């Protein structure tokens, strides 16, 4: 028995020794010689199609063979975390898509895992608010991609039915929005929007109109207890639920189903929803896109952001090729962005592309408006905020407090408790 224990301990020590060596050697899955560049991304209609178009436009010196692997976003996060934390880069792709809210947590948690793109792209070519999430320590690690700029998608036919015009909904505050929502619900029986009580995306959109976030500008200090804008967001969220103007949904397919089937009057969300709205051809001409409502804060603007993601190159062999590919397509080609916007309606944040004709085309689905040009205009107005690294951790705390608030807890207490919890938990 004793011998067995000794043998086991010896084996353990041996194995832990192996592990530390492995960690430092940084072995990797990439291959220096081959032309293959692997990419992990989600959303076949949007991001993956964009990659395919990019491959068509690529005309760099070295030939590359792009291998796109589609994964759900959650799976990518999981694979990146397990892969990067294991200390070996085996099996990692060359390029990966990461949501802006999460980018800092990856950049800071795995500092050597990403390849510096500062020499490949010009940060000034991209929208300002995309730079802070994609850079760290003065270096640019991410190539900013889709804007995530928000718009208020409205059903004009329902508005007319209730006696409103689109002017009534242009450049309004959320407060006005809720008031009109109640009236419209009464007149037409239609819900004004969808809300998921487990997802505070709507609150994020609201507070960013006033340049506020869950954390202070340093990106780490939680800013919940005395955050007046957040408080207003909570109040509006509750009012929309309690006055029954919001249809409750619990996932993406119910969310899309709600507007495709005509259950809701408006969809206040990121521009990436355009392909899903247009998927319902029978509603063509019935929609318009207006500026997102803002908070009552005097500094708030009718422009905000929701989601949006960027490309990152991992520090594995083949990184130069991968970086060149990105720089040659997403980082510099106006024609590429023109095709992108025409074919899939994806609006990049590459500013030089904004002047091109393709960005000024009108869209009959949305009543002949120049929707892309509008979105770009709003993109420039989006207040830049530092998302920090803990967006989803803080949001989980807030969702729990939102639930308490809906059940009658005092709002100030709820936010104060959330603040205390966030301070205790985040490191």
């Amino acid at each position, binding site marked *: 028995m004793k011998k067995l224990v000794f043998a086991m301990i010896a084996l353990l020590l041996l194995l832990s020794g192996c592990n530390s060596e492995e960690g430092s050697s940084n072995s990797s899955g990439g291959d220096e010689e081959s032309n293959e560049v692997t990419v992990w991304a989600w959303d076949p209609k949007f991001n993956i199609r964009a990659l395919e178009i990019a491959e068509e436009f690529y005309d760099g010196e070295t030939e590359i063979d792009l291998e796109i692997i589609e994964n759900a976003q959650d799976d990518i996060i999981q694979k990146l975390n397990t892969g990067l934390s294991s200390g070996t880069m085996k099996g990692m792709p060359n390029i990966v898509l990461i949501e802006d809210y999460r980018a800092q947590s990856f950049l800071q*948690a795995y*500092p050597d895992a990403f390849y510096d793109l500062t020499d490949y792209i010009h940060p000034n070519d991209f929208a300002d608010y995309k730079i802070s999430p994609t850079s760290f320590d003065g270096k640019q690690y991410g190539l900013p991609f889709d804007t995530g700029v928000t718009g208020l998608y409205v059903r004009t036919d329902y508005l007319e039915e209730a006696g409103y015009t689109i002017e009534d909904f242009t450049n309004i505050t959320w407060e006005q929005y809720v008031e009109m929502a109640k009236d419209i619900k009464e007149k037409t029986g239609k819900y004004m929007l969808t809300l998921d009580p487990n997802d505070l995306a709507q609150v994020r959109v609201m507070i960013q109109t006033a340049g506020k976030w869950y954390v202070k500008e340093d990106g780490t200090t939680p800013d919940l207890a005395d955050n007046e804008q957040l408080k207003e967001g909570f109040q509006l969220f509750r009012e929309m639920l309690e006055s029954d103007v919001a249809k409750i949904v619990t996932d993406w397919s119910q969310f899309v189903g709600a507007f495709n089937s005509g259950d809701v009057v408006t969809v206040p969300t990121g521009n990436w929803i355009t392909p899903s709205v247009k998927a319902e051809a029978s509603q063509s001409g019935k929609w318009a896109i207006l500026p997102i409502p803002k908070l009552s804060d005097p500094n708030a603007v009718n422009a905000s952001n929701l989601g949006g993601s960027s490309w990152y190159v991992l520090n594995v062999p083949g990184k130069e090729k991968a970086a060149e590919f990105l720089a040659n397509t997403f980082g510099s080609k106006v024609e590429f962005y023109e095709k992108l916007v025409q074919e899939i309606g994806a609006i990049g944040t590459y500013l030089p592309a904004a002047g091109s004709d393709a960005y000024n085309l009108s869209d009959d689905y949305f009543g002949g408006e120049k929707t892309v040009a509008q979105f770009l205009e709003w993109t420039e107005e989006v207040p830049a905020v530092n998302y920090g690294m803990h967006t*989803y951790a803080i949001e989980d705390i807030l969702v729990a407090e939102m639930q308490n608030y809906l059940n009658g807890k005092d709002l100030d207490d709820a936010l104060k408790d959330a603040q205390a919890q966030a301070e*205790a*938990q985040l490191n």
Partner: protein
Amino acid sequence: MICIFYFYPMIQALILSFQSGMGNNLQYVGFDNYFRLFKDPTFISALKNTFIYLIFQVPIMLFLALVLATLLNSPNLKFRGFFRTAIFLPAVTSLVAYSVIFKYLFATDGLINQFLMMIHLVHEPINWITHPFWAKVTIIIAITWRWTGYNMVFYLASLQNIDKSIYEAAKIDGASPIQQFFLVTIPMLKPIILFTTITSTIGTLQLFDEVMNITYGGPGNATITISQYIYNLSFEYTPDFGYAATVSYVILILIVILSIIQFKVSGD
């Protein structure tokens, strides 16, 4: 092999549970992670929810399984094979697939609500998924649906090993079917009941798929389980693998304690 795949990861996880930090930037923090557990409201909710599932769901399920097994063991029942298969089938369906279907069945405008309204049991739809209480009930219904048949099969197998003469003797002594069930069947099945209690307890403490897919832990952590919290700590938030390992060890310790209690209670 066992050393490499079982003991080595276990010890590594134990070492990890004394470290903290983002992703790979880990430092040793001693017992800080363990102290943090007691001050962490999310962990406490997760622990509370897991125990609620344990206290309500496991006894309901095992009792149901026992009753079903006894009924299906009756030689007078027609189509026994069909019923047995039908009740066992949920246990072999995909965890994710059934969770997703449950989510749609229990949606506010889902089939369950439509049915309840049709038979006038409720006046307005129940917010199964988005109400803290009903969300827990939904999870309990879901896991009961899936695992009752599985436990029933164990009972059925051991019921068939009980000598029929014992029942005959009980009948002669004037025991009603209900008395037979409580005074003969249950005591005879004691070892297997202990086995299913322990496996169900372990299963509940590790509950993940249903909660992840049906309610995503919500509304506001009302249904979050310890396993899902570990997932969130590792993959949803800025990764803190050290703290996640600490929470995993809590599950291990709980399983050990509960199993010991169950052995003691059953007197083995």
